[in-house]
């Protein structure tokens, strides 16, 4: 694969890998166990441009392309998927929609501090009664003079515990159904903006995923993205990029699991030989390596299409579906190859296994992805 990439992308991978191996690897297991968000590393990442990967330099970003973005997310996730999640969600479903749908004034207000990592972004769509069915949200924004009065109960907000700039999906026209949904930007610290308790998650534990409530929270009308009624369109556009990021994240986790499995299989002896000599182990290694490679190609293809300004929505959905299913299978095999030790916290594969599982759930479940892909295939 590496030979097919541009020099820029190879250099980027090496640089991100060196940074993550030095800064994140020593603490990855610990921040998972303690469910601690590592600000000390996040600040360094902010200074290096990780929070504005595709944002133009004029707005404080790194000005890189989508393939670079995918590689960066993959490499961070190879070491700490929870931090990969933080960077992915911030870049793709928080910063990107503001860039794509915001007015110049909104871009100038929010993007530079977000791109420098001085502020963290979040995407607040899911509610207790609306997950896969985004059109079923109940949050409301009632217009009152030059403000919206927002009432919302958002759950499972990635970065929620630390986010400053939150994209809130809410109904501005309760009578208009799916066409009555809009996105308003709410900032932490506003009266009525309440951060809930952290979710006690199975994986991705270093990410402060939590609920966010807005209780009669007054947000300036100028915080509306684009116009009223296009909320779901903004959401779907954001998720096209977001899914590519989740695909890249799944590839990174799977790659890490593959590397650990190979290392262990070489060193563990049973029946007088390293277990890598047993054909059953070799079969798993072959399937793992093939799956990771295919998933990576699909993610990079979606990114390359985006860089060429070609349609990439279907390819992004396929990449996310395949990469996340691959990551859960590959991490499962890595646990299997480790035997009992794979089920113990003495080895990192149990963390990969827990982290991989959610990639099939968030930013659209595998089931929803299959619906989306089937629809697009059948309509072709």
């Amino acid at each position, binding site marked *: 694969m590496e030979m097919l990439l541009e*020099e*820029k992308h*190879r*250099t980027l991978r090496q*640089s991100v890998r060196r940074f993550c191996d030095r800064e994140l690897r020593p603490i990855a297991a610990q921040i998972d166990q303690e469910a601690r968000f590592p600000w000390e590393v996040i600040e360094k990442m902010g*200074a290096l*441009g990780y929070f504005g990967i595709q944002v133009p330099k004029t707005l404080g*970003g790194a000005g890189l392309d989508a393939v670079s973005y995918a590689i960066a997310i993959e490499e961070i996730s190879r070491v700490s998927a929870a931090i990969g999640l933080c960077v992915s969600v911030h870049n793709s479903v928080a910063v990107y929609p503001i860039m794509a749908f915001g007015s110049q004034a909104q871009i100038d207000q929010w993007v530079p501090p977000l791109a420098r990592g001085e502020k963290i972004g979040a995407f607040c769509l899911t509610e207790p009664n609306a997950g896969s069915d985004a059109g079923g949200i109940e949050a409301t924004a009632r217009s009152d003079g030059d403000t919206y009065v927002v009432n919302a109960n958002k759950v499972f907000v990635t970065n929620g515990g630390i986010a400053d700039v939150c994209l809130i999906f809410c109904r501005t026209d309760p009578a208009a159904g799916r066409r009555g949904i809009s996105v308003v930007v709410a900032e932490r610290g506003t009266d009525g903006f309440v951060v809930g308790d952290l979710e006690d998650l199975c994986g991705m534990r270093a990410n402060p995923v939590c609920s966010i409530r807005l209780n009669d929270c007054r947000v300036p009308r100028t915080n509306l993205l684009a116009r009223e009624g296009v909320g779901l369109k903004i959401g779907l556009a954001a998720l096209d990029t977001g899914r590519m990021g989740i695909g890249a994240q799944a590839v990174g986790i799977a790659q890490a699991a593959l590397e650990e499995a190979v290392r262990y299989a070489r060193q563990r002896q049973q029946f007088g030989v390293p277990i890598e000599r047993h054909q059953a182990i070799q079969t798993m290694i072959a399937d793992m390596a093939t799956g990771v490679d295919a998933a990576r190609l699909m993610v990079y293809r979606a990114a390359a299409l985006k860089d060429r300004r070609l349609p990439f929505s279907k390819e992004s959905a396929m990449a996310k579906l395949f990469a996340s299913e691959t990551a859960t299978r590959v991490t499962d095999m890595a646990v299997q190859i480790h035997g009992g030790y794979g089920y113990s916290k003495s080895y990192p594969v149990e963390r990969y296994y827990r982290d991989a599982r959610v990639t099939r759930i968030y930013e659209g479940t595998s089931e929803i992805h299959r619906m989306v892909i089937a629809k697009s295939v059948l309509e072709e």
Partner: protein
Amino acid sequence: MHIIVCIKSVVTDAPRGKIVRRADKCALNPFDRPALEVALQLKEKHGGSVTVLTMGPPSANATLREALAIGAHRAVLLCDPALAGSDTLATSTALSAAVNYLAPFDLILFGSRTLDSDTGQVGPQTAVRLDIPMVTGAVKIDGFPGHLTVERKVDGFLETYELDLPAALTIHPASAAPRDPALGGIAAAFDEMPVETLSIGQVGLDPNQVGDAGSPTRVLSMKPVKKKRTCQWIQGTPATQADDLVRQLVDAGLIG
């Protein structure tokens, strides 16, 4: 102040002992990173610019761009088929010619050695070719402008030197923690900044001064060393095992 840092694209992997200088198997020599860091810190303190120079094949381009991403202002690749097979002497002949081409300069920095050949000779030989003062293994550099105060640690002593400029230094790997390239720096280095390529003719060299022709070194043979390892079991309780181990190590002159 104009600082030139000589860097090398080293081979990171030689499958089955065969060296292929392919961009995905090459990286910026880790011992050059502290030298570049020192140059950038001096530039930040005293102003001026940092040029990175390498002699190498076209694939060394990526290494120069990485140095640009880290913060160098100008990147120069001395690349010519006639350079193939250069030993350390021919390399320093070529580098000194390129340095003269880039003159005026105040300081030339080198890493202390390279990951893939590890002679440590190129820096000092280049300084001799240029007829400028050189200190190896520098850990602290001060005293600008005009002259230079350099500290160097050897054999438990701290030596301090004063040098006239221009001068050359090899930088001790522990002297500065190299910075990471910013992601925006990577974008700029690959999308916006140029790498200048020089041929040996442009720097005033003749093909017989460099490459195989200019290299007095002749490698007679090279083969991997097979180490014979034996395993000895030490028996007894943990305490007597430890005593036994210590005694054997003392007897072998390895500790004590």
